[in-house]
């Protein structure tokens, strides 16, 4: 007890106001004001125990610390006289699990008291085990992909740009990373991380990683696709140049609806380094495709993610029944608007379009130079093509992951046409040319309050036209053409739901007024 000190926190240094600190000298004690720990005892339920009492004698000059070791007596008749049980009054240190006592410890601590989930206290453990058996090979989003010995690793930069091999790849988490690795020609064959073998060595839970394609990059940066991709090319030194160094790996994992991985393929970019190279940049990528589907990049799952393109398509004409939506608008099936170019000339920048990103209001435009010789109808058509693009879609996906087969998940685009001129000119022979396209996308929050998903409810495309006044010959006019996209959140605010007020249900027994009724 004389050696115990609770306030001695700093090693080899004097703690302030800690009278039991052995690192303090008499000079330090003279600077204290009180003793933070006046008494150190053992368990005070014992009948007789040693106690160390520390106090400061402030009368003396300088103040001194007084240390007394006394026997403290517990006067109660129920004080502990003796114990024959070693761990009676102290915390028992838990047993270290070894291979012998593991099963017994598991049985002891497996019960509901030690379970992490409060919901499983009364649960029947038999009911849980059949579903657990099916869970062994199912992956959930974000779960690290297991290989034979550990996890599938995607090297990525951690604090600096140097590669760290400890980043596990998560299921359905598409990642693309770039990091730097230090290499040298001398250690060419010894560095594991630049050899193909390192990346295809581990099999992903009973599925072998196949090599899909190999591209060889020469010293001057030219890429060549190799014909035969099943040959393992290991780094080797050739004429003071180390070839077959892995510069990039791209994993493609195919999975099923049930969450199992059925195929894993890797594509490599191999390069060469010469003597002066001290480090190379490696890039890694992993992507997941569901089996039997064509990969279409999702813009959210299920709600749209801000910054991802809005998906659109159109239904082929002539089909009365709901059929798949086709993505002919652009390769990826996105809604696009006119892209502003540097020279701002509408006619010069034919066809340049930029995808509409969800949540980002965009404005773009160009300037149209017209002369007197321009005819109305072709100009109108050109401007419509410019504003809407070659094939303007009819339907927009309401969720980021809407499938083409679910036609009801797609929102039709409604078109409006307004005229800039307020005065309604009955003289209709004047030319109306479209000068602006405004797309308004109304979206709402859908789903749970905790994790609301964005869902597109309504898309309107408004074309504003203006009268083209005939120019005197020789004169030129510049008309600004604009197109814009606006996203409006029309979700109604959450309403709190209160329980109904409790009602007092008073019913007197039928014979309450007995003698009188």
């Amino acid at each position, binding site marked *: 007890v004389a050696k115990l000190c609770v306030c001695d926190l700093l090693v080899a240094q004097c703690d302030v106001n800690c009278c039991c600190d052995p690192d303090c000298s008499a000079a330090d004690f003279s600077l204290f004001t009180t003793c933070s720990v006046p008494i150190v005892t053992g368990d005070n339920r014992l009948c007789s125990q040693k106690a160390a009492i520390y106090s400061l004698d402030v009368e003396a000059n300088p103040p001194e610390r007084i240390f007394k070791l006394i026997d403290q007596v517990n006067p109660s008749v129920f004080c*502990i006289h003796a114990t*024959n049980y070693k761990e009676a009054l102290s915390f028992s240190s838990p047993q270290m699990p070894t291979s012998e006592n593991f099963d017994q410890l598991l049985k002891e601590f497996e019960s509901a008291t030690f379970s992490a989930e409060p919901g499983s206290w009364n649960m029947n453990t038999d009911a849980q085990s059949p579903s657990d058996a099916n869970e062994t090979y199912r992956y959930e989003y974000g779960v690290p992909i297991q290989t034979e010995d550990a996890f599938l690793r995607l090297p990525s930069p951690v604090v600096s740009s140097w590669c760290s091999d400890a980043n596990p790849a998560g299921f359905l988490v598409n990642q693309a990373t770039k990091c730097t690795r230090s290499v040298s020609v001398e250690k060419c064959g010894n560095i594991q991380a630049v050899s193909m073998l390192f990346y295809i060595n581990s099999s992903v839970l009973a599925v072998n990683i196949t090599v899909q394609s190999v591209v060889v990059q020469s010293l001057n940066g030219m890429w060549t696709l190799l014909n035969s991709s099943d040959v393992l090319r290991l780094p080797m030194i050739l004429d003071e140049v180390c070839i077959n160094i892995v510069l990039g790996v791209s994993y493609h994992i195919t999975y099923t609806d049930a969450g199992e991985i059925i195929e894993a393929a890797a594509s490599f970019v191999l390069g060469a380094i010469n003597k002066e190279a001290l480090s190379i940049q490696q890039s890694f990528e992993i992507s997941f495709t569901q089996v039997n589907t064509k990969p279409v990049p999702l813009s959210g799952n299920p709600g749209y993610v801000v910054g991802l393109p809005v998906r659109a398509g159109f239904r082929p004409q002539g089909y009365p029944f709901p059929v798949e939506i086709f993505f002919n608008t652009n390769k990826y099936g996105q809604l696009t608007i006119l892209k502003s170019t540097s020279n701002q000339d509408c006619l010069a920048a034919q066809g340049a379009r930029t995808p509409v990103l969800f949540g980002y209001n965009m404005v773009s435009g160009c300037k149209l130079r017209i002369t007197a010789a321009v005819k109305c109808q072709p100009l109108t058509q050109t401007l419509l093509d410019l504003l809407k693009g070659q094939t303007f879609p009819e339907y927009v996906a309401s969720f980021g992951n809407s499938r083409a087969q679910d036609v009801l998940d797609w929102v039709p685009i409604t078109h409006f046409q307004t005229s800039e001129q307020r005065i309604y000119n009955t003289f209709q022979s004047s030319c109306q040319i479209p000068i602006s396209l405004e797309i308004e996308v109304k979206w709402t929050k859908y789903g749970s309050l905790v994790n609301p998903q964005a869902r597109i409810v309504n898309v309107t495309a408004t074309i504003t036209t203006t009268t083209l006044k005939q120019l005197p010959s020789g004169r030129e006019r510049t008309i600004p053409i604009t197109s814009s996209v606006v996203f409006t959140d029309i979700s109604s605010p959450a309403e709190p739901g209160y329980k109904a007020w409790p009602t007092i249900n008073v019913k007197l027994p039928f014979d309450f007024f007995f003698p009188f009724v």
Partner: protein
Amino acid sequence: TSLLREILNSSYQLSSVPLQILFYINGIYYIFYFLATLAMIVYKSEVFSYPDDFLTPDLALLFIMAILEVLRLYLGSKGNLTEEEAPLGLSLAITVGSVILSVYFLVWQTYVLKADVILNALLLFTYGLESVLKVVAIAAFVS
């Protein structure tokens, strides 16, 4: 004169009166001892860490001691009153067992509180006194 002789010299009554008084007191004290020890074991199991491995022997020995005590007091009392040495001898033998159990509760129990010490010390003192008186009574009966 025979009546006078009876009153003056009660030596033909061999039953030991002090021993009988002691048996009576012992019985009452033991009831108190049993209830107090049982209550204290319950108290210890609530307040201290008293695992089942240690609680079960203590409780079992307490109940065995109670049974032995009943037997012992009955045999001793019967032997004393009927002036037979056999039950008294048997009672003395059982007293040895009771002494051992009392020493267990005094020294080898899982938690020995001060109250335990007091109770068991008193009980041992009573046993000791009883044993002496029993030996004297047996000697008186035998001779």
